[in-house]
């Protein structure tokens, strides 16, 4: 089975330093979510993952935009890219980075959950004919994503995956398992259209979206849970998983 080949020390060079992982949840009520899944070119599928993680076939990323107007830290908007992967047998997404509009949320997400936060103007708009997300960061436009031809789905048809986020910690380099729970009120699926994705701006220039898979939108109460697990980045999950507090 293939594993990642990236050097965790190099990957973690600019990762957040997390002294104490989150012990309290961050609750966002009535958040709007737009998420697209794209296949990416396969030539770097192992090179973008640490040895702890395994690539999927075909390699793919999720791009998620969340507009949280009512949260424990005030309103914020977040756009995130993850690489779909496996930790042992489990489905996970390796957090690449995120753009956040909202200073307090940005600080908390970086310090407690190891989000690689970049300040930006993040816009998510839902219209009758679909949803649109744009990220502007100075002169850069790291993301322009549309969901077209929306059709309603049952909330039960949606499936979200937990993330692993690389951090420098007092114990060394670790992947924090970040669990986002969604209580979905309304959901749908559409056709994704990615008109801008500046991979270098996201911090991983080897990600080249090549083929659309799906796009979903939802309104949901979203909870970013306290961190329960840390994983070493240099060995597999069966060997390198640590439960916090044990």
């Amino acid at each position: 089975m293939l594993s990642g080949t990236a050097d965790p020390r190099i990957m973690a060079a600019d990762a957040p330093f997390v002294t104490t992982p989150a012990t309290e949840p961050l609750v966002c009520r009535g958040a709007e979510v737009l998420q697209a899944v794209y296949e990416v070119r396969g030539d770097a599928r192992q090179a973008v993952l640490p040895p702890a993680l395994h690539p999927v076939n075909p390699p793919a990323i999720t791009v998620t935009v969340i507009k949280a107007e009512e949260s424990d830290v005030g309103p914020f908007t977040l756009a995130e890219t993850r690489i779909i992967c496996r930790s042992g047998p489990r489905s996970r997404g390796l957090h690449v980075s995120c753009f956040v509009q909202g200073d307090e949320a940005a600080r908390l997400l970086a310090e407690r959950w190891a989000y690689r936060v970049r300040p930006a103007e993040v816009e998510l708009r839902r219209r009758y004919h679909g949803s649109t997300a744009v990220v502007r960061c100075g002169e850069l436009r790291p993301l322009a994503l549309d969901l077209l031809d929306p059709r309603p789905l049952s909330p039960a048809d949606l499936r979200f995956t937990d993330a692993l986020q690389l951090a420098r910690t007092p114990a060394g380099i670790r992947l924090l398992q970040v669990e986002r729970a969604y209580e979905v009120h309304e959901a749908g699926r559409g056709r994704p259209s990615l008109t801008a994705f500046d991979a270098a701006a996201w911090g991983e220039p080897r990600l080249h979206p090549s083929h659309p898979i799906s796009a979903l939108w939802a309104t949901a109460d979203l909870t970013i849970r306290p961190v329960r697990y840390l994983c070493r980045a240099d060995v597999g999950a069966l060997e390198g998983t640590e439960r916090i507090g044990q």
Partner: protein
Amino acid sequence: MKFGIFFELSVPQPLSRSDEAQAYGDALEQSRLADELGFTTAWAVEHHFLQEYSHCSAPEIFLTAVAMSTSRLRVGHGGVVCVPQINHPIRVAERAAALDILSGGRLDMGTARASTITELGGFGADPDTTKMSWDEYVHVLPRLWTEERVRYEGTTFSFPERPVLPKPAQDPHPPLWVTVTSPGTERDAADRGIGCLGVAAASFKEQERRTADYRKRIQQCDPVGKAVNDQVATMNYLFCHEDDAVATRVGGAMFTAFGMLNSNLLWAREVYPTPAYQSLGNLAAGGVARIRDDDPSRQRPVPEGVAIGDPERIVKAIKVWESVGVDAINFLLNTANLVPQEQVLDSMRLFAAEVMPHFAEGGR
């Protein structure tokens, strides 16, 4: 109880052509031995693009080779992906009929709909409609095999009147099966009068519930074919050795490796929100998760019911499957060439000598 073997034709990475050739060659040799030992059927899956997990993309070719080198072993074409973008229904009927003729009427016909976005996306198939297309296939295939000329206008495919040739050797036609992964598919099978080809590792209790439900419903079935197939088969792993510790070590590694490869597939359910896929695909992560969560110092690395162990342990496990109403068990014999071929063959011989005689049909 009948015993079959089941091929994914997994190949280790990094890929080499010699490893692929070895996987195919080993599987053919295992089939010949299975024929001699009294196994009933050799099943071969159909998968596309699933690097390492399954290199069995042209099972009808492989099964033709199996049929040509065996005399009694049935060949299980299971499951053919019943999605028009992957296999046109007429081509499915033609190939199956040819295989049935060449095998001397030894074909069992499995049907499936694929559950990874790797496969569905690779052919541009719409995950929302695969259940619908599968349903149309199972209704049309028996007609293509038994009616001189067939015309069909459906939702996922249509074709004008044609004489589809050849017709199969078996009269009226080969037994039809459906691979059962998602809970509820056993009901679809029962309602249509076709066999349940289980490829998911259900617990004893779950299998008992599903089998009872199937037996009850099939009494009221509206058969899609000219004959009802009311058999329930499950999938299992086989590594039999006199020394239970050796069996556990070698077979456990195979079991774990297969579960890990399976969990690395990119399931439609995971990346394409749809009501058409309510569960992940076969085997999912359950078996492996159990291993991880158990204390390795106290537990065997294979769950209850898996046919890995010494003959006594395997007999006990199969007795339980028998008691819950299962008619046949199909065994996966290796994963990615992990177990040396001689050990696989020895395991099959020991199973035939020490386990098969405990069961009524002794495999055949």
